[in-house]
């Protein structure tokens, strides 16, 4: 078979293929200069990524009603690449929030000394919640040595499941909270500190150790994809090891898109004083005083 015969066959096949349905060769896209962008910015998140929608404005409105990831478009049955990488970025931020430690400089800057729970690694922290609720023996000595005893209000911070939340909120929240308490006469405030690898329940031991009346822990929440910066405050009146969880009052969702840190600090100052006055927290506080818990 010579070349011309082969060429004829190839031509015939190509002609046949082009007639048959479903064979399309994509046009080469125009080449764009790479633009400066951050796909995790608010503007990019608000963008409608559906190709040729019936009503783009309607989709933009839908996106205002929810922070769920709607109007994200698709590549065949899968994500388009922008959505795929945005999801990876948000997950990476959440992972870093869980696994990265707080810098010493940040704690020094707001005047906190650091102690630790009984967990020696992040891995142990994640799998042994019981150890994350207890201070190490050395930490107990340090706290007893450095802290004022029998305060009306004892405040401390813990990384919990998001060190990012502490970094993002504590430097603004703590001064605002302490300022708010300074102006109240007759209320003594204990020495604040930071606990690495700490869980909420650790506040019960702190309360017993320092004989505090009201104890408040500021702690990083388990990060979602929407934000890794969310912090909570758990508060209890005369917290004791083994007490019911329902005795804790919780203020959650402290972050720049929820309750901003400075505002949260001022609010917490008032709340701590109300709990001190009511001598109750959690379910008891709500029921007895009609106050919001």
């Amino acid at each position, binding site marked *: 078979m010579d070349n011309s015969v082969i060429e004829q066959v190839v031509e015939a096949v190509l002609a046949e293929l082009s007639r048959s349905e479903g064979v399309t060769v994509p046009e080469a896209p125009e080449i764009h200069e790479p633009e400066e962008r951050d796909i995790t910015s608010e503007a990019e998140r608000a963008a409608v990524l559906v190709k040729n929608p019936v009503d783009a404005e309607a989709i933009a409105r839908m996106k205002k009603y*929810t*922070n769920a990831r*709607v*109007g994200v478009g698709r590549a065949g*049955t899968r994500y388009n690449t922008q959505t795929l990488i945005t999801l990876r970025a948000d997950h990476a931020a959440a992972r870093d929030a869980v696994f990265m430690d707080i810098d010493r400089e940040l704690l020094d800057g707001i005047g906190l000394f650091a102690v630790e729970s009984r967990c020696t690694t992040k891995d142990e922290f*994640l799998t*042994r919640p019981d150890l994350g609720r207890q201070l190490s023996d050395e930490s107990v000595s340090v706290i007893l040595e450095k802290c004022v005893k029998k305060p009306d209000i004892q405040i401390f911070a813990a990384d919990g499941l998001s060190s990012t939340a502490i970094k993002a909120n504590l430097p603004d929240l703590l001064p605002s909270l302490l300022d708010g308490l300074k102006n109240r006469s007759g209320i003594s405030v204990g020495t604040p500190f930071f606990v690495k690898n700490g869980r909420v329940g650790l506040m019960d031991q702190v309360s017993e150790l320092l004989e505090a009346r009201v104890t408040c822990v500021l702690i990083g929440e388990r990060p979602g994809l929407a934000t890794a910066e969310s912090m909570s405050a758990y508060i209890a009146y005369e917290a004791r090891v083994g007490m019911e969880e329902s005795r804790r009052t919780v203020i959650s969702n402290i972050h720049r898109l929820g309750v901003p840190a400075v505002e949260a600090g001022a609010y917490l100052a008032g709340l701590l004083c109300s709990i001190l006055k009511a001598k109750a927290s959690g379910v008891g506080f709500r029921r007895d005083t009609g106050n919001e818990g």
Partner: protein
Amino acid sequence: MTLKSTLLGRTYTFSSVKEVLAKANEQKSGDVLAGLAAESELERVAAKEALSRMTLNTLRENPAVPYEEDEVTRINQDALNETVYNGIKNWTVADFREWILDCDTEEKDLLRVSAGLTAEMIAAVTKLMSNLDLVYAASKMRVPARCNTTIGLPGTLSARLQPNHTTDNVDGITASVLEGLTYGCGDALIGLNPVNDAVSSVTEVLKRLDDIKNNYGIPTQICVLAHITTQIEAVRQGAPADLIFQSVAGSEKGNRAFGFSRETVIEAHELLRKHGTSAGPNVLYFETGQGSELSSESHHGSDQVTMEARCYAFCREFSPFLVNTVVGFIGPEYLYDSRQVVRAGLEDHFMGKLSGLPMGCDCCYTNHMMADQNDLENLSLLLASAGVNYIISVPASDDVMLNYQSNAYHDITAIRAALNLRPIREFELWLEKMGITENGRLSKHAGDPSFLLGKKA
């Protein structure tokens, strides 16, 4: 009864059936946390060896929680088909495993034997199965169920559309529902986990979901997964509900921690029979997940696979329409990494089916687990191969309310295409009629939620 075994010349002795069951588990961080796990890999295998020679009647006579103390045990034992049980009670767990895997053992045989099994027998055989054993054995069984539509028929993969919202805003929920419908999701259920458990709020969402269902003529069912007592009250006050939901545990104490008992479920069932909006007969929806008993200290010293099997024994008493394990939701202290989550997902699906339940799965993970979206995609493909009735789907995998990741709407169509599966027939016809699919493939309008605005059934 022999509670010992010898491996590599060393003899391992166990003090109870419970200990053999626990130590025979594949590794789970929750069993370690509970202090029940095998202390070495060899001890784990030694427990499997001891378990393989245990007879099914030994397992029946040693329930995880005593009959007198626990309503889940009583439900399981009292409902057993004694004729079936008498035929298999002298089998060892090894005999049972090999019978399940035998090429001549078919769906009808498995579902017949199911009636004579206690949760402890089902858990025991699961502990001797490899991952592929679990996929293969589950793929032999299909358990369909009927509410407004029938799900679970061979060749189908359905999806629950989960349009959760941070404040239960009905317009925001609607946006997520429309988006999901245009990806072919929602044939199992359109079901919301509410933030607010108040009757008025739950009713408002139910009415919106009912409006969407009726407006577009969608062949599906709706549900708001509030606490069972809230849903009961909402239906009493006239809210539309096709199904009533509750999370369940494997012990009476665990269910009490969830705030309900058998009586509550019976009440919900009766109420829907009289005032529900669905055709039935299957009108209940249950969710489970390994580790929930330990987290409420209601595990009675038993491992999490055994307690999970007991959830299914409870569920089957009420002939539900949907049952799914929320497999990776509970966190790394119970299921540490993707390996443990994948294993648990396959175990739960198999155990549920062998209990005669129409099983689904929420393939999911939290951000403090050693798992990511790739792992979740793997698990959903494995379960689809094993013939799971349905999986959960959310917008772009991100549940903004529960703060975890599940399958994306996008995943449902991709899995169906890759494994040659389809939505249930009624829903498939609806997708074609609306123009979301054309000849079974996504149309150019798929993924465009604005396409459905202004359309009618």
